[in-house]
């Protein structure tokens, strides 16, 4: 991004891109199956890169397991331990079998968010379709877990215990709507965070260009914001994971 602003200031007459220009999807390998467009785009490249990055990191860190861990092995173990602890604290002992699902979800979102902070990289999680697919996956898995574990009793999920029967016509629709709106809120939270953050960085970068000499002030602010954005990237991956754990707890134990 820094080089981008320098480039722009040297050619002041050049049109400045809109801050939303960074989210544009370009098809690198156009591909159509029937009437569906399944082109390999710049977003797909970064999804593949995220997965490759995670794979290389973990195989590199853990290919030789040592008693005295190397730095990378320590990082991998910390990540594993962190998610395992969160899962056990929120979803309980029965939730442990869902660890691979939760851990890969956490790693993918964390990897995509952090990879998006690299200048010129594309932030995959700033596309609502990506986050919505992830949230929908969580929603379907959790509904399946609830139904497989409890069968017909899953209905009681929408009837909190201790509520008088008279209130059921009011409570059940509310519970149902709040259950169905989970994938929406889960996906919009991640998407809005990443998109608003990256747009904000670009808006301040444009200020730097436009303000000339005084552009130092927004540049300093941009450096602070970059640190903040890295924090948000980690925090949002954590929030997505912890909410998945909380939903898992609800599905396993009902109310």
């Amino acid at each position, binding site marked *: 991004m820094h080089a981008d602003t320098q480039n722009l200031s040297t050619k002041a007459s050049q049109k400045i891109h809109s801050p939303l220009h960074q989210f544009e999807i370009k098809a690198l390998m156009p591909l159509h199956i029937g009437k569906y467009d399944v082109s390999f785009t710049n977003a797909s490249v970064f999804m593949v890169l995220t997965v490759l990055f995670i794979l290389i990191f973990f195989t590199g860190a853990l290919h030789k397991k040592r008693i005295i861990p190397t730095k990378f092995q320590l990082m991998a173990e910390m990540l594993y331990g962190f998610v395992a602890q969160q899962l056990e604290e929120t979803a309980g002992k029965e939730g442990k079998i869902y660890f691979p699902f939760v851990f890969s979800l956490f790693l993918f979102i964390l990897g995509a968010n952090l990879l998006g902070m690299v200048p010129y990289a594309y932030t995959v999680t700033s596309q609502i379709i990506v986050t919505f697919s992830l949230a929908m996956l969580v929603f379907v898995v959790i509904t399946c877990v609830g139904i497989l574990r409890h069968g017909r009793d899953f209905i009681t999920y929408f009837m909190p215990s201790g509520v008088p029967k008279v209130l059921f016509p009011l409570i059940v629709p509310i519970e149902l709507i709040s259950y169905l709106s989970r994938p929406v809120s889960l996906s919009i*939270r991640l998407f*809005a965070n990443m*998109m*608003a953050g990256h747009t904000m960085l670009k808006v301040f970068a444009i200020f730097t260009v436009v303000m000339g000499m005084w552009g130092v002030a927004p540049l300093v602010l941009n450096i602070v914001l970059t640190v903040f954005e890295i924090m948000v990237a980690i*925090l949002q991956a954590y*929030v997505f994971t912890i909410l998945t754990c909380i939903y898992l707890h609800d599905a396993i134990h009902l109310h």
Partner: protein
Amino acid sequence: MDVQAAKMIGAGLAVVALMGVGIGIGNIFSSLISAIARNPSARDQLFPIGLLGFALTEAVALFALLIAFLILFL
């Protein structure tokens, strides 16, 4: 009224929601600080909960910011 001017006013109005978010985040951290001050040994358990509350509240601010951006740039 000029459409561009109306867009600017709309974007300004959209971020009024930040007022509530400011109060909310202030509340979260003030409670977190007073809780830790009362029982410093509970810090490790309270801090992640505080961060979770912060992230959930901050998301509301970002929804408003998103709407403002959409009005301004689309």
